[in-house]
Each structure stands twice: as structure tokens, then as C-alpha cells.
């Protein structure tokens, strides 16, 4: 601390004030008559969510501290922020594809770190889970700024040297979004532009329910017809909303709907499932007479975690579901033990020996919501015993949590699960950087797997 005019001020602040008075502190000239004003570029400035963006700062003084800051507002109006500290190189540029962050939301060289490193801004609502864009037809708007020195966005005043606005889209131009309420099936179909026919995916999410559209929208943007299917917690499904009231015939109808669609190749349809969606995908492929071309399973069980009410897979309400819940010191709940193979209802365990198509199983090793490692082991053993281990591709990511989603979106280690009957925050697991790496790598491998099995 320094005493300046009788007031105690932290040293860091004093140095910055001096920098403002004399523009040449330590030989740094932020503005110069022989150099254009600083410039921040992002390319492409309108990109798909899974496109990499190249973020660069130009016309800066050499070897100087700068901060690049990103801000984004979600559909619900919550503000998310990320920032990273850099030192410009000898030609006065900063390039996030080349340069390491030395502080901020992430460290090291991470070209997309400002995106997956987004966190709720100070003062935001608790327990936010960001990567849940409800309106997939509109983009996320990101404001990126280049600030003088190594600062954090909430420090005001900070000198903004340059700014750029970027848009990130789930839907490529020409992708069509079609709401499906047909034959009792509730879902949203995304079709790529063009005459088709296209290979297709059936897209299943977890017990959070509702209709999650954004992954399907991205598949369609990459040339695959994709159908997000609701099976629990949707007003257009038979109630009550907290149970699964649809069974095998429902999923078969959904698959049939895809097969019958004039713009879909009936023999090039895969199924992707996350969490409970994994069980549904495995069940469909092994029991029901449906023959998908491939399966992609992310962090889910090989049997039902909820007692089945009937042979078709509908569930019944039971308080026993909660007996495997565990709590941490803050009262956050982990559902992990619910899906331990030993705790799955034995009659619901999928007969994987009947599987005939390639299966990719993706494990987040820090999954606190599902016993992914154990289920992956179970699947591997079962297939091996049936002489079908060549069907399995297993991807395992240390430090990754439950919600392995399309890349460059932030991961929430925990988020609000329910408000009634009590407020519950659930743990998903996953540490920021390894989870982001898992999302990037797995998405690439998912698209390659789809390419191999659906397009060739």
C-alpha cells in the first residue's frame, strides 16, 4: 500500500493512474502517430456453435499487457463473462490461436477459451446452466473487447481499446425446423437444406425432460436430418410430467417417422443418447426390432435407473429412487450412485448381446450424475463375452463431467435441478478445461463416426 495524499491506495492502482497521466510509462505508448488505432477481429464473425473462431488484436504496442474479454447474454437475460490476460508479442499483436493466457478465466493457449470459459457474471442468478439455448433459430450475440492492461471485466474504469461483436448460431442458413406432433410422437425435426435424401439421427436427452433441440439443430447444420424426441416432462405428452408414460411403441413410432420421411434415407439412421437417453438408445437397438445404423451413447446407464411399470418401459413413481442420492457439504445432490450397475433394476438391463450395429460410448471420468465408467465397463464386458467387441468404440475423458455437449459452450459443474418440492442443486461434475477439451474432441469424433456409419 502507498500513502498518497493521506489516502491508502493499493500499489497496483497507483501505477495505473500514473500510466494514464504519462502515456509513456515504462516506454509503453498505447497510441502513436505512426500506427493505426488498436483493432480487434473475430473470424468468422457469424459462426456456427461448433466452428472455431480466430480472435486477434492488432496495432498494439509490443510486449504489453492486454485483456480480451467476452460477454454474452443468454435467452433468459443472464449475463455471462470470460476474460483472459495476454502479453502482446514483438509485432504488437495478440492471437488467441497462438498465445497463452497468463490469467483470467482460463490459462494457457486455448483458442476457444473465451467461449467455454464463460461464467455467470458477478451478481447473476444462482445455479445457471448455460448451454441450454431454448430458441435455436436465433444466435448468441457475443461482445468481445480488448482492454488495456491485465484487468478483470468488473474493474471500472478500464480502457477499451477495441471491440467486436460476433454471432454464434446453432442453425446454418437453410436448415428447417419442423415441430412434430404426429401419431402421438412429440419432437422437433431439423432438416438440412437441399433436396436430400439425408442420413438421420434420433436425438435423446436425459431425465431433465422437455425438448432439447440444439444438438439436432447442429447435426442438421452438418448435413444430417435430426429428430429431437421428448419422452418425459413435456406438456404434449401423456401425464403426469414427472414419469415416463410412453413405452417402446412410442420410440418405434418416432424411428418409423424418420424412416418414412421422404427426405431421409431409411437405412441410414443412427441414435444418440445422453444420460437416460443412453438406456433408451440401447434398449431400442437391442430389443425392439429397430435396426439403427449406429449408436452414440454419452454418460448413461445400460439399464433403467427407475423402476419400470411395464414391459414397454414406462416408469412408475417411487420414493426409492432417492435412496441412492448423495449430498455434498453444500447440500448439492449427486445422482451418480443411482446408475451403478448393481443398483439398476435387473430386468431392465439391456441385452447388449443382441446389438448388431457400431456403438460409440463416451465417458466423462468426473461424471457425478451417472456411473458412466462402471456402465461403460459393463457394456464392454457384455459385448466382449458375446464376441462383439469390435462394435464398440470407447472414448474416455479424464476431468470431464456428465454433460458432454457440443463444443465451445461452458460446462456447469452444478446447476439448479428443481425448485419444488425443495430447491435442489445437482452436481454434474467436470472441471472447466478438461471438460471443454472433452467436448471438442468428442464432437469431432461423433461427426466422424456418423460420417463413417451413415454416409459411406
Amino acid at each position, binding site marked *: 500500500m502507498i500513502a498518497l495524499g493521506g489516502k491508502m491506495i493499493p500499489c497496483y492502482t497507483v501505477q495505473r493512474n500514473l500510466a494514464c497521466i504519462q502515456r509513456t510509462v515504462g516506454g509503453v505508448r*498505447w*497510441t*502513436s*502517430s*505512426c*500506427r*493505426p*488505432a*488498436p*483493432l*480487434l*477481429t473475430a473470424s*468468422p*464473425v*457469424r*459462426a*456456427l456453435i461448433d*466452428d472455431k473462431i480466430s480472435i486477434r488484436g*492488432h496495432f498494439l504496442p509490443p510486449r504489453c499487457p492486454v485483456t480480451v474479454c467476452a460477454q454474452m447474454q443468454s435467452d433468459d437475460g443472464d449475463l455471462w463473462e470470460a476474460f483472459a490476460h495476454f502479453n502482446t508479442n514483438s509485432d504488437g499483436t495478440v492471437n488467441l490461436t497462438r498465445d497463452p493466457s497468463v490469467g483470467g478465466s482460463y490459462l494457457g493457449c486455448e483458442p476457444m477459451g473465451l467461449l467455454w470459459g464463460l461464467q455467470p457474471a458477478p451478481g447473476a442468478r444462482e445455479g445457471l446452466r448455460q448451454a441450454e439455448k431454448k430458441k435455436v433459430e436465433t444466435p448468441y*450475440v457475443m*461482445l468481445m*473487447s480488448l482492454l488495456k492492461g491485465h484487468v478483470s471485466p468488473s474493474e471500472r474504469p478500464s*480502457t*477499451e*481499446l*477495441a*471491440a*467486436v*461483436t*460476433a*454471432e454464434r*448460431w446453432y442453425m*446454418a*442458413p*437453410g436448415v428447417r425446423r419442423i415441430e412434430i406432433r404426429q401419431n402421438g410422437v412429440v419432437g422437433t425435426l431439423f432438416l*438440412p*437444406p*437441399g*433436396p436430400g435424401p439425408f*442420413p438421420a439421427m434420433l436425438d435423446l436427452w436425459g431425465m431433465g425432460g422437455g425438448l432439447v433441440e440444439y444438438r439436432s439443430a447442429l447435426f442438421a447444420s452438418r*448435413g444430417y436430418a435430426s429428430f429431437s424426441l421428448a419422452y418425459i416432462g413435456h406438456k404434449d405428452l401423456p401425464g403426469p410430467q414427472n414419469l415416463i408414460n410412453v413405452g417402446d411403441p412410442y420410440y418405434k413410432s418416432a424411428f418409423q417417422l424418420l424412416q418414412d420421411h421422404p427426405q431421409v*434415407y431409411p*437405412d*441410414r439412421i443412427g441414435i444418440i443418447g445422453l444420460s437416460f437417453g443412453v438406456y433408451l438408445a440401447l434398449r431400442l437397438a437391442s430389443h425392439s426390432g429397430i435396426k439403427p445404423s449406429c449408436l452414440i451413447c454419452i454418460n448413461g446407464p445400460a439399464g433403467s435407473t427407475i423402476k419400470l411399470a411395464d414391459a414397454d418401459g414406462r416408469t412408475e413413481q417411487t420414493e426409492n429412487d432417492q435412496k441412492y442420492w448423495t449430498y455434498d457439504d453444500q447440500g448439492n445432490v449427486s445422482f451418480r450412485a443411482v446408475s451403478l450397475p448393481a443398483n439398476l433394476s435387473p430386468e431392465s438391463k439391456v441385452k447388449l448381446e443382441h446389438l448388431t450395429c457400431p456403438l460409440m460410448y463416451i465417458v466423462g471420468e468426473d461424471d457425478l450424475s451417472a456411473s458412466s465408467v462402471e456402465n461403460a465397463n459393463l457394456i464392454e464386458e457384455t459385448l466382449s463375452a458375446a464376441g462383439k467387441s469390435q462394435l464398440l468404440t470407447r472414448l474416455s475423458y479424464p476431468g470431464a463431467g456428465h454433460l458432454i455437449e457440443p463444443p465451445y459452450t461452458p460446462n456447469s459443474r452444478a446447476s439448479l435441478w428443481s425448485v419444488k418440492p425443495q430447491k435442489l442443486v445437482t452436481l454434474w461434475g467436470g472441471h472447466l478445461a478438461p471438460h471443454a477439451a472433452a467436448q471438442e474432441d468428442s464432437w469431432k469424433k461423433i461427426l466422424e463416426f456418423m460420417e463413417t456409419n*451413415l*454416409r*459411406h
Partner: protein
Amino acid sequence: MSMKPLCVKLSVQPSRGLVDEKFTVLVQNLLPGFQLTVHALHQCEDGHSWEAFAHYTTDATGTVNVSQDPSLDGTYSGVEPMGLLWSLRPVPGSKSGLRMRKMNVLTPMVVTISVYQGHQMEGFLDRVSLASVVVERWYMAPGVRRVPITDGKLTATLFLPSGAGPFPGLLDLWGGGGKLVEYRAALLASHGIASMALDYLTPQITKETGKMVDNDYFETAYRVLEQHPQILGSRIAMLGLSFGTSVTLRMAVYSQDVKLSCAVCISGSHVQPIGGSVEQILAYFNGNADKTRFDENNQVIWRDLLLPIPTDPSLKVDMGRLQCPLLLVVGEDDQNWPAHECAMDMKEMMERAGNSHLLTVLSYKNAGHLIEPPFMPFARASTFKTVTNPPTKVMALWGGELVAHSRAQEDAWRKMLVFLRENLYGGMKHGASFSNL
């Protein structure tokens, strides 16, 4: 073991770009040596359809990359990454004399790029393509704001770049066709320059009073820019095309109120009765109307109206008095204005006066009159409605040859942006944001 039919993959990156951004068109997953046609289709705002196409053959990996592989035939040939856009032409059966101009800049230009089997020359709309994608081309980058301006009885639109600013400013003038044409100003704002498109031949005030505007109209526009809280009053440029050049040069040299950091003049001339009003300048041109020529297709050639270049100094802007950097862009095949000859005369005047260090001339062989932002389709002639009372509709010959003109547009735009940035941003005394180059 059944052979599944091949599932062709077509991608365009970026699928959403700015109008002056390049894209990569990639066709994959076909057999090697496969003959295909890549086709572009655009329906413009007035409902007309435009198309371009090119013939390719896949390489050993079954791939065509339009940025690297040569087109064997079509609306363009050779290796032309952006040929699918600049060679767009009205589909067979369209009206003649069409010119593509986007008037609503808030929405993108939508182009459908498709792949057809075989080397096709026509009938695309009756065939089923193998694959097709949609590409959006935007005049406005994200965050650019469109602000209609009515102060001071102006008919204008201001485009502010994204960010806090302050930004350098620019006054953007089109030519003798009048109307409020916004797309170039929107694009310049996407490059960090707060730009105001100004309608000065058919503004609201002229429609109401019947009187043409004069110098004070332009000075008002300049002042609106100068006083805008997000614009650096000391960094304002002017850009004029065709008749807009006449106004720009007059303001740059003679106006007491307008102090320009630099000026860009495209396809224009310094020939005008100095001290005359806008109306009088137009009258001077009309006075030479007997020099109008017609080509073999009855298309109007107006370039001779200003030739020979007068020696009388009262009929030319005194270029020796210019005090700011000037970029002249001219097409040597301009059939509408004798832009090249005027550029040479301006150069000579400035050399004699000793201020030629301010002048840069970009002169393009076989380029015509309408040198516009790049990758836009080319019109060698199109219907033109004069702003006279009553207006007359003619088929004006602009000149230029497709490939040379398209290259000129690309080169000129790039150099214009560099010129503007150097003169508007060089030596800033305090932080200004320049988002997006």
C-alpha cells in the same frame, strides 16, 4: 453386401459472411473423375432470379474445391474462388437491363449453392440437385447499427460500427440515379467507419418543394457527422461515385465548412461549372446532350458529354487547391463518364500545382463505370432512370468486361479500405475502436 449409394457432401465456409468476404465451396464424397456442375441461385429483392454455374471434375479423392480447382466451363472459367457470385446473371427469360442492388441491408442476400450431376448448361431449376446449401451474405456485421437521419431536412441513413467508438466518419454519395442507397455505407461501417449514405438528388425535401438541394445540404450532412457523439469530428472522409464525385471534389476543394481527412472518387470527373449549384452542374451536362451516342444495341453512351476536357479553368474544379489525400478509382472502359481521361487531367493539374503527392490513381483496364464492392454481379448495361423532370428511362451502357471488372472491384475495394484506414486511423491521439477489418 449391398453397395450403398454415395452420399455427396457439400459445404460452404463461412455459411454466413460479409458481402466482401471470400468463401470456400467444397464438394466431397463422390467418385474420382466425377463430372459435376456447381450452381448458384439468388432471388433478389425485386423478385428476379440470378444464376451462375461452373463445370468441375472431381480429383482422385472424389473432391472439388472451388477455391483451388479450375472451372472447365460455365459463367466463369479457371480457378475463381468467388466466381459463383460475381458471374451471377439473370436466368434465361428474364427482363433485359437488370442490375442487382440490395436496398434492405438489414437482411442478408441469400444464395443457394447446389451440385448437379454432369456438366449442365441449362434447365437447372427443372433438375434435382445432388446436394444444396444456403449461404447468407451480409452487408452489416453483427453489432452495426442503422440510424435513419432526418435532422436538418436530410434524407440519409447513418451506420455506426459496433462498439463504443468514437469512430471516424464518412459521407457516402452515389450518382445520377438518385435514391437512398445504403449498402456501401453499411459495409463500410462493418469495417469500422461510421458512414452516412446521403440521398441528394431525390431527397424528401426535393420531392416536397420541387427544388434541388445545394451546397448547404452537404455541409449540413457533414456537420451531423462532425457533431455526432460517437464520431471523431476531425476524422471525416467523403466517398463519391459518378456524379457523387462531382459533389465530393467541389466540397473538398471549395467548401469552407467541410474539412476532409481524405476523399475517394470513383468513376467521376472534376469537370463542372465551378460556383454553380448542383442543379446548374446537371444543366451543364444536359447542355451537352447532343454528344450522346448509341451503340449497336441502342444502349446510351454518355462519356462524350464531358469531352473534350475543357481548358477553361472555370469549368473544372481547381485540383491544385486540394489539401487532403485523394484516391481516384477509374475504369478504362467506362462508357458513361470519361473517368480515365479526367483522372489523367486531374493528375496533370496537381503535378503542375505541386500537390500531386496527395493523389493516388487506380485505373483498371476493361473495367466499366459501376465499380462497386466486390463479388457483386456485373452489368455491362442496365436500365437507368434519370432524375430529370419528367424522368426518362434508357438503357445505359456502363462498359467493362466481366472478369476484368470483377477483378477491379475486388482490388479497388481492398485498396480503398487500406487508404481509408491509413488516413482516418493513422496517428489517432486517443483510443478509437476499429472493429472488423
